[in-house]
């Protein structure tokens, strides 16, 4: 299974032009786990993910997959191990869901080779796993935001990679759909053993869904570990510059960050609508 694959950043720096955004990051994604990269806006978390998926070239250091720097691996071969769902993928006008998901098969196909049963099976599995099997023949244009995000995840699944990186997979989704997408990714991690790494904005969802958190500030990695170990008021202050309390999430018993803010502080008892 996927425990064989390791993706790591070694003293990795990258940026745009002469501007350094990611500054000397060392990290290794725990194989078969869900890792989440968190941090304030413009801390470099998205650029780190883009560099790890070779969309941005390192200015120094390297991204290493199974011991080999990824810019030395032929891009097509790499695409059979390392998948990426970018923040804003583009669906061609009028494309059917099954056809779009089928495009995820690209790295497994050769020029002029006919479509194989294996390809059809991968598409069917991906559609079933993401719960959009009934939409297979529909046009992607007609779908809602939540359905569309499922279809994109299905495309990444059809690519059948053991490592999957996702750049803010929950942006533009309402809370219910955010939870739905994160539950889906957890399903995939549990059933397929896929190593997942993603950037999330919401620290509380990150703390709930991550096995392992990477916290970034100004291009550097400032904390790494299980959410219950690393999410502390001190870290929230360091990473987000936010005064907050951290309590236990009553549902998942993971850390829950409660911002203090300048207004609304109140000392009366809490727990509105807790189960009786």
């Amino acid at each position: 299974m996927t425990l064989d694959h390791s993706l790591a950043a070694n003293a990795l720096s990258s940026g745009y032009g002469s501007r350094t955004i990611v500054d000397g990051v060392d990290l290794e994604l725990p194989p078969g786990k869900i890792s989440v990269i968190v941090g304030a806006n413009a801390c470099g978390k998205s650029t780190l993910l883009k560099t790890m998926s070779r969309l941005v070239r390192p200015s120094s250091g390297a991204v290493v997959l199974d011991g080999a720097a990824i810019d030395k691996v032929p891009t097509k071969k790499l695409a059979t191990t390392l998948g990426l769902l970018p923040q804003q993928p583009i669906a061609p006008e009028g494309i059917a869901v099954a056809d779009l998901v089928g495009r995820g098969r690209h790295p497994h196909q050769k020029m002029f080779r006919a479509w194989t049963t294996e390809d059809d099976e991968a598409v069917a599995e991906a559609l079933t796993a993401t719960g959009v099997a009934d939409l297979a023949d529909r046009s992607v244009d007609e779908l809602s935001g939540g359905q569309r995000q499922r279809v994109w995840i299905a495309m990444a699944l059809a690519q059948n990679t053991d490592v999957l990186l996702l750049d803010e997979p929950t942006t533009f989704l309402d809370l219910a759909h955010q939870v739905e997408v994160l539950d889906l990714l957890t399903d995939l991690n549990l059933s397929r053993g896929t190593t997942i790494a993603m950037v999330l904005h919401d620290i509380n969802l990150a703390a709930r869904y991550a096995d392992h958190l990477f916290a970034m500030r100004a291009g550097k990695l400032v904390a790494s570990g299980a959410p219950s170990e690393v999410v502390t008021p001190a870290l929230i202050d360091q990473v987000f510059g936010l005064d907050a309390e951290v309590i236990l999430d009553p549902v998942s018993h993971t850390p829950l960050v409660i911002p203090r803010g300048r207004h609304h502080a109140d000392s009366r008892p809490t727990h509105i609508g807790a189960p009786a």
Partner: protein
Amino acid sequence: MTGLETSAATIRAGRIRRARRRTIASLVLAVLLVVLAAAMLMFGNTFYTPAQVWGVIVGQDVPGASFTVGTLRIPRLVAGILAGIAFGVAGSTFQTMLRNPLASPDVIGITSGASAAAVLALVVLHWSAGATTALALGVGIATAVVIYLAARGGESTGGRLILIGIGIGAMLDAVVQFLVQRASEWDVAVAMRWLTGSLNGVQPDRLWPLVAGVVVLVPVILGVSRGLRALELGDASATALGVSVSSTRVILIVAAVALACVATATTGPIAFVALLSGPIATRIVGPGAPALLSAGLVGACLVLGADLIGQFAFDTAFPVGVITGIGAPYLLFLLIRMSRNGGSS
């Protein structure tokens, strides 16, 4: 929300259903092309029966027909088909790659560049077909590079690329007019060819660069069309799917620009064929896959159809580009839509 399960067989059935529609639509286009081609060979000042035309094609000596069909109509037909394919494939490649229906080589000034070079080489310098094509190619690619350099950087590169291209195209069209007027053999027919495109007076011995261009470049583009399909999803997705984005794009741009330029060097920039073929082909074969080859077929049908109309529908014969010029309202429609969408089209 758990969706139903699906099986490989269901996926396969849906995929085959959509593919079959594309195949049937392409066959219909091919049949239409054959009908138009036959009409072009049969009709003219003198009508020749299919049997006579066939006789000429297989090399028999048919009185009258051998000259009219063999020397006049067949070169005209070949030029029309090949230029149509070249403009259709080149336009559709650009539109798909840049994800913008306006990004066609005739709208963004590339064919104007090729046309200015061709008129300079042919009308002013009296160069050979090969040298003319080479210059048209060079200037066409240079035009593309200039437009790209002027448009790059910042937000909304697509919209800016198109506006800059339209501006550069207008400048180059002025160059064409200037050159045609300065040349001693100034006449309306010559001017029309280099401004809107024409199949009049195509000479068989001047066709070979176009033949070679289509035979070489169309397969090159089709060869990387799988990469183009990934590029449609955006650069990030294409990279994630294992496509070398920059090299695929360079191959596609160079091949498509070259195709448009060799066609322009032979027939002039036949108006709007490159712009219209891709969207028409998509309408006919259905969305969801780049319709490069069908766009080529549509391009050829447009050129032949428009040339037949131009020759026979009116009291005076018009060159093909005047007839395809009725595509202008579509360009207007796209421009209005682009300005409403704030340049992103």
